[in-house]
């Protein structure tokens, strides 16, 4: 199912884990037959346990409780409930695996509720009805037979609640009621504060069935009823034959009310006698039981509990309705504390010379829109100190903010490292950019060099290129190629201008020597020869000499270009 939309809630009867908490045996068997003759092979048994909270519940599993913990308010109209983060928790164990309690008696036309019976119950006790026991051995909490049904776990200590057996019996939901009192809610997680995080939006909710009475101090207790067939009844006890319902009809169709009332008379109590006290309160008469030899109190494994009081106002609605609403800077008693109209607070301060002074401070919350200070960045807190022109008082708001930020950052060692890394990377790259720019200008490389591509191969190829293209006569280094194209020095131009009969005449006029005119000298002639031995090559002294000259020329060229002495 898709996630619930904002404002939506999805309810589930139960959510079952794939395996209930228990001890399991896994048997692996292999069937092998050869020529249809079975070959017996030993199987293998493995054992594993699925464990979950059983005798105690970590407080972190509880996502929320209602009424709020230690809350005061008119909660006498609400039954308590607890929301558990682990959505499968109420159904991870079986209440009554051996069906000791029995199947609830079916009422005609009432199908059994869908879902599973939980092993948790939420019971409500009022002050004086219970006592809390902490860290008691399990054997002392549950009856011996129950202890055996639980598998006689050894060395378990747990918290327990002790109350009179009559009371527990009267408030304990029946097997079917327990099932109706637990469900799963799936809510939308957006638009909530952060404590919901880490949850998937699912909450198992266990409700109680007892309403607290008004003006009482109550404790709601999440208890384990696993194997408590001594306490959980098969069928719900009879309902009160409440005679005072008649006549209190309010916008109710009369037939409906009458029906409800008449149904009230159907059953009567075989175990507990009740009588009606004039004045409208139903009181329990202590019942005389046929098992008086049993202890009059009983204990239950307590997983989680919280207290609240049903006095005063304090529902969500009442709290919200009585809120003091205002913009920041509104104080209940004007002048206390003295705030300026700009919401600055006067603060006493000793300046760094030890002189007491009164300064102004304002937090980041302001009651009106402010323009953002464009003068950034600030490098020290002092830079951000301000003086109000009207009073001459110093405004330390922004200086305090600066210091707060500095201290917060300094308290985080990783941030210090990351800041340094940020700077180091930037310095490294800008230093690289500087070097690349310098190399480009020095080597007269016109092309842009990408800062992130490896620079060395690019530079090397550029260097080799300029070395090889510049391997002509040294004269080229002084750009005589350009000079010889100057009209006065160009024999072709001279011949044309003076209408000389031949180019040679012009050459002779300009001095006669091609070299003097800076003309390029052709590449030395290559001697083509067959593949030969290295000795034969070494014997060619003339060739070696020419090679040596070329090398010297290249080196000279480089030296001249770089302006260095080799």
């Amino acid at each position, binding site marked *: *199912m898709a996630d619930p939309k904002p404002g939506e809630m999805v309810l589930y009867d139960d959510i079952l884990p794939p395996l209930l908490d228990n001890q399991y045996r896994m048997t692996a068997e292999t069937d092998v037959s050869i020529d249809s003759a079975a070959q017996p092979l030993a199987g293998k048994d493995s054992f594993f346990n699925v464990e979950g909270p059983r005798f105690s519940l970590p407080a972190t599993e509880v996502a929320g409780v209602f009424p709020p913990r230690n809350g005061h308010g008119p909660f006498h109209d609400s039954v308590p409930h607890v929301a558990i983060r682990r959505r499968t928790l109420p159904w991870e164990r079986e209440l009554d695996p051996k069906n000791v309690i029995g199947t609830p008696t079916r009422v005609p036309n009432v199908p059994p509720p869908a879902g599973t019976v939980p092993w948790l119950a939420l019971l409500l006790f009022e002050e004086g009805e219970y006592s809390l026991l902490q860290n008691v051995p399990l054997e002392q909490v549950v009856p011996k037979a129950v202890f055996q049904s639980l598998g006689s776990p050894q060395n378990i200590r747990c918290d327990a609640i002790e109350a009179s057996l009559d009371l527990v019996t009267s408030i304990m939901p029946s097997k079917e009621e327990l099932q109706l009192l637990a469900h799963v809610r799936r809510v939308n997680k957006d638009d909530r504060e952060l404590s919901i995080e880490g949850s998937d939006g699912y909450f198992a909710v266990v409700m109680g069935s007892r309403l607290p009475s008004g003006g009482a101090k109550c404790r709601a207790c999440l208890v384990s009823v696993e194997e408590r067939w001594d306490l959980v009844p098969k069928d719900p006890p009879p309902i009160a034959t409440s005679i005072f319902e008649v006549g209190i009809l309010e916008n109710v169709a009369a037939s409906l009310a009458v029906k*409800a009332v008449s149904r009230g008379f159907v059953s009567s109590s075989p175990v507990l006698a009740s009588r009606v006290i004039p004045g409208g309160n139903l009181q329990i008469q202590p019942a005389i039981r046929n098992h008086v030899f049993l202890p009059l109190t009983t204990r239950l494994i307590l997983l989680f509990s919280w207290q609240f009081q049903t006095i005063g106002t304090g529902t969500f609605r009442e709290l919200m309705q009585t809120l003091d609403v205002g913009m920041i800077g509104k104080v209940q008693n004007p002048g206390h504390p003295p705030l300026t109209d700009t919401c600055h607070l006067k603060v006493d301060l000793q300046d760094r010379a030890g002189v007491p002074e009164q300064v102004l401070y304002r937090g980041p919350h302001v009651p009106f829109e402010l323009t953002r200070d464009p003068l950034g960045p600030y490098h020290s807190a002092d830079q951000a100190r301000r003086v109000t022109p009207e009073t001459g008082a110093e405004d330390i708001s922004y200086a305090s903010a600066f210091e*707060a930020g500095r201290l917060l950052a300094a308290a985080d060692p990783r941030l210090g490292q990351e800041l340094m890394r940020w700077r180091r990377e930037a310095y490294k790259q800008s230093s690289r950019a500087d070097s690349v720019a310098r190399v480009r200008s020095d080597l007269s490389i016109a092309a842009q060099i990408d800062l992130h591509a490896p620079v060395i191969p690019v530079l090397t190829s550029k260097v080799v290129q300029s070395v090889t293209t510049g391997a002509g006569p040294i004269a080229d280094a002084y750009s005589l190629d350009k000079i010889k194209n100057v009209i006065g020095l160009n024999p072709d131009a001279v011949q044309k201008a003076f209408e000389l009969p031949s180019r040679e005449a012009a050459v002779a006029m300009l001095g006669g020597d091609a070299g003097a005119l800076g003309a390029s000298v052709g590449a030395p002639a290559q001697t083509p020869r067959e593949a030969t031995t290295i000795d034969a090559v070494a014997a060619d002294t003339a060739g070696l000499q020419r090679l040596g000259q070329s090398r010297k020329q290249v080196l000279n060229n480089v030296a001249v270009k770089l302006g260095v002495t080799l």
Partner: protein
Amino acid sequence: VRTSWITGQEALRQRLINPAQIAFTEPEAEMPPYMESFLSHLRLLVGVPFEYLIPDPRMLPDESIRFFYLDRSWTDRLVDGAISVGKVGTREQAHHQAHHGPVSQQLDFTERIVRDLQRGTDSFPTLKGTIRGQQPPADIITGFLLRSGAVSGWPTMDVRAYRTDLSEPLDPANPESLNQQLRTLRLERLSPSILLALFQGVPQLVYLEEPHHLIQFGVRTVGSQLRIDLRDSTGHQIRTDPNNPRSNPIPQTVHVRAAHNRVVAIANLRRDLITARNTHPQMPEQTGSAAFAIEVLSLPWRQRFEGVEDQAEKSGGSGAFVSVVMIGSRVTDLATKTAFVSVLAGGGG
């Protein structure tokens, strides 16, 4: 040995006379993710001691809510202060000076994913991709501080802010209201009873709603009788006149046990609900505990805080929600108080 082309001293000189430093478009100039995330958290005051926010406790008395604008200069100084760590010389200053603008602009965007980061919905790079190029680049931040027993008693309440004053019934999942909803930048409890909320933009309507997983199972006491209201399968009350949302809801008497007059007879109530469904077929079929819960839950209370527009003019401000404007808390009618929708059809799907 050749002399090197540039000395360390010269490199430093070059760097200092060149205020642009490395171009901020280069990947090396980008802030490391941790630093960017830390600074954007600072932008939303994460970790700032409470005394800095509220210098005098009387500015946020018990059971009060205070709305505010966030002073951007203040948070900018906070970030400046954080960056000043390890800034020992002019080189670092020159670097910060050169990169201040881009850093500040980047944080204007990154602050929008702080809530997702806090919630751990996704990784920093993925989330950063979702807000790249979003408009407007820098927005007004508003919010409120709430100090109330409701914060501790009802953790994880719903908080939403809208740029227009939408009227009830307001369905937060409706595309129209989603379109008007302001981005919640931060929603966090600073202490058990203090809630801080920050929104991107100026709201006309802010509402707080009881958390849905703590919606209580409640009854109404009428005289000495306990009642609940019948609800349809979406959780809405069934009215005596289905066309009139203000007509009376149809009640159902809740019986108690004979043995204890404050213990609700749960199984009996379910039986009554099954009978009631014969007359009111819009009720969900009583299959299991989920269908049962629908009938017995009370809907969450939604508290609205609205800007009062007609006073805005007097203040000469830019609209409602200005300092001198009273923020009225309006009691919304019970019948229309919420447009809570609960989808269900029993059965653990």
